[in-house]
């Protein structure tokens, strides 16, 4: 009756029937499976699920209205997180874990007031991921960048970008970008 090492490698005991070819094949196959799994684990660890989407058009934004950005371009996606055709407002979370999320948005020159970038996960473990508000610039477009580390506990979570301005006038939003990458299980 052969025995196994803690990693599952099979070896014959003294009283076992001598069959060297079968026994060394068994051992070699066990090690093969184990080491191959280590190679796969290494590759997976370095291949973090990542999605990047952008909005390249021009979004007219009335004062005081919170608007969810609809992305039009998939820039990177190695885990089916971006679906421009089916769910263009979202980057979906493929598995439970901690995610690094960064986003940026550019507002046109506008009247004096404020503008904001909000990153949300509606109904998620952390609903309001990060938000940044800035004073608008009456002579120069205003860009906002934000980064956050958040926890996603469900694979039905979706990360979205919202924009909002309070100037009393109209503004245009361009160059929106959202990046989501998993950094830990």
């Amino acid at each position, binding site marked *: 009756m052969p025995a196994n090492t803690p990693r599952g490698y099979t070896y014959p005991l003294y009283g076992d029937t001598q069959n060297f070819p079968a026994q*060394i*094949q068994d051992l070699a196959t066990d090690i093969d499976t184990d080491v191959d799994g280590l190679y796969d684990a290494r590759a997976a660890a370095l291949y*973090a699920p*990542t999605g990047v989407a952008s909005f390249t058009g021009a979004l007219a934004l009335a004062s005081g209205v919170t608007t969810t950005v609809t992305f039009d371009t998939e820039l990177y996606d190695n885990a089916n997180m971006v679906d421009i055709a089916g769910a263009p407002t979202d980057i979906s979370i493929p598995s439970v874990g901690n995610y690094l999320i960064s986003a940026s948005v*550019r507002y046109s020159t506008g009247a004096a007031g404020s503008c904001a970038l909000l990153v949300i996960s509606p109904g998620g473990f952390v609903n309001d991921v990060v938000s940044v508000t800035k004073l608008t610039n009456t002579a*120069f477009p205003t860009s906002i960048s934000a*980064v956050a580390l958040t926890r996603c506990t469900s694979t039905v979570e979706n990360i979205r970008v919202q924009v909002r301005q309070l100037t009393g006038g109209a503004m245009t939003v361009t*160059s929106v970008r959202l*990046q989501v*990458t998993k950094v830990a299980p």
Partner: protein
Amino acid sequence: MPAFTPNRNYPYSIPADPANVPEAIQALAEAVDADLQTLQSLVGPRPMARARGITPVVASGSVTTFNTMPMEVLDFNVGGAVSLPGDGTVQILSEGSWLGIASMSFPPSSGTLSGIRMTIIDGSNTEYADTSTNNFPVVPETQRTMGASGMAFFIPGVFDRTLLRAEVNRTAGGAAFTLRDHTLTLIRMTDGP
């Protein structure tokens, strides 16, 4: 003539082989040893680096100027992640999706400044992070720092450069404006496409 395992190609004896147990065990042991040595060489920290520029950059002349903020030193460079070609850019040395985090310091202005934008640019001249400010330090403050982050995909030899760019907007005839220390931290998030 030994057979080989399906994944890692480890040799093992078959019944038709000569009965040479020591040689068969040695062949298997050496194959496993070499394979694990390869695996060990692949296991390392995630490639990451921080480049920094300390030489002030002066924005002058036109009302709007675009200045490359040159990267001059590497504060750390884990796993030989990047190099500095000497033209102010940072060269990415392994394929994947990288997170860039940038910062830039600026002093009080003389009142002729209307906006500063900082962008991180990839090898195809596309901005992948963007932030701006019109809120400037006032003496006795000495400086403020702005930050931005974003992700981009890099392929060595194809699209492998990234740089930090500052756009400075001043009123016509306004005084030159000096931008100070700036950093670009890069972390590889994915390995390959």
